């Protein structure tokens, strides 16, 4: 009963926050409400027994997306006003579509099909890790994860095509020293999350996102002058996750008897996964950090 009450309150809160973010008159309110929405989503994931997602959402939704949105928001400062948008026509249409979707989701059978989960449980022992989500991400469906890293890299490459630097505020001593205090903690926590990912919720992405927030905090306080795409070492690390992944895949093809892409031999699977995850964490952290803070200054070179 108490849990159901919690569910009702949480769902109502989620819908209210999302609705208010969409309908609020000022954009700054919309962004603030959206960030609150992200935090609540993390709570919902935790409630629905998806701790991996709760960790990821907390790091991403509450931290980095917020920073990104506020950067964009700062640009709206001098922008001309918009005409007040229509409400009723979209509302009626969307209400009809939502009613249809509501009807559809109630058609979903409550009885799950468990064949795939059983298959995961069966093969977990030979996957190299003991946490099923990590096993799916880095072994059973590793190709998805490789492509996902590529999507992240592409976001950075795309964003680099359209640089627009906001002037950084001079760092205040208080925030500088707080950032110095905070970032080692974040580093420690992200290393812990990465290590834990093999056996429990956590893993490369959560760790990377956390590390990225540490990097962003330091960079916004005028430290880490080396954090730039022009720096060869940074570039290498940004690409490290993908390079490690591809090399591991190609190496697995060369092993005798195995002629399938991305198949880790059972004995080495744990090691390969940890290796790939470590590089992926670094890559994710640097990519996200570069996405949020951008480049100091640069002009795109010609081919």
């Amino acid at each position, binding site marked *: 009963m108490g849990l159901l009450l919690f569910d009702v309150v949480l769902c109502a809160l989620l819908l209210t926050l999302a609705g208010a973010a969409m309908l609020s008159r*000022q954009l700054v309110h919309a962004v603030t409400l959206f960030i609150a929405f992200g935090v609540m989503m993390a709570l919902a994931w935790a409630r629905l027994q998806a701790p991996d997602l709760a960790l990821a959402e907390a790091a991403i939704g509450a931290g980095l997306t917020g920073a990104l949105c506020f950067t964009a928001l700062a640009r709206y*400062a001098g922008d001309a006003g918009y005409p007040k948008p229509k409400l009723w026509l979209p509302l009626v249409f969307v209400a009809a579509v939502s009613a249809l979707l509501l009807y559809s989701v109630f058609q979903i059978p409550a009885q799950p099909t468990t064949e795939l989960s059983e298959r995961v449980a069966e093969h977990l022992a030979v996957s190299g890790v003991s946490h099923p989500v990590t096993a799916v991400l880095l072994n059973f469906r590793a190709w998805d994860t490789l492509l996902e890293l590529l999507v992240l890299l592409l976001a950075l490459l795309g964003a680099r095509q359209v640089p627009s630097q906001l002037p950084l505020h001079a760092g205040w001593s208080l925030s500088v020293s707080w950032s110095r205090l905070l970032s080692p903690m974040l580093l420690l926590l992200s290393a812990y999350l990465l290590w834990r990912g093999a056996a429990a919720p956590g893993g490369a992405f959560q760790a990377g996102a956390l590390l990225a927030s540490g990097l962003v905090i330091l960079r916004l306080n005028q430290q880490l002058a080396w954090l730039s795409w022009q720096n060869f070492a940074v570039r290498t690390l940004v690409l490290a996750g993908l390079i490690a992944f591809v090399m591991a895949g190609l190496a697995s093809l060369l092993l005798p008897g195995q002629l399938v892409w991305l198949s880790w031999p059972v004995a080495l699977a744990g090691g390969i996964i940890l290796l790939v995850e470590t590089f992926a964490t670094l890559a994710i952290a640097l990519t996200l950090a570069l996405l949020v803070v951008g480049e100091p200054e640069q002009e795109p070179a010609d081919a």
Partner: protein
Amino acid sequence: MSILQLCSWLLLALGVVFFLAGSLGLLRFADSFSRLHAVTKADTLGLGLVVIGLSLQSHWREACLMLLIWLVVMGSGAVSCQLLARFSHEQQANPVEPADPGQED
């Protein structure tokens, strides 16, 4: 219900009251300084009470973890409060520079 549990629930309730008061302040107070005042102080206290309340009902390891969380939240609350206050102070002293974003309509 033991004494310990009763204390715990009382502390939790008190914590929630402080949280509510802080949020009310955030919504109702007029200028940013008083809002900061409401949010950081009341919420930190509220969180502390909730942490103590929960600690009474849990294992000591979780209690330590929650204490750590409270400390970090307190630290970041204090720092961000200072920074925000300083920012608004500078804005008031020199209001020409970047206008409040989002004032477009």
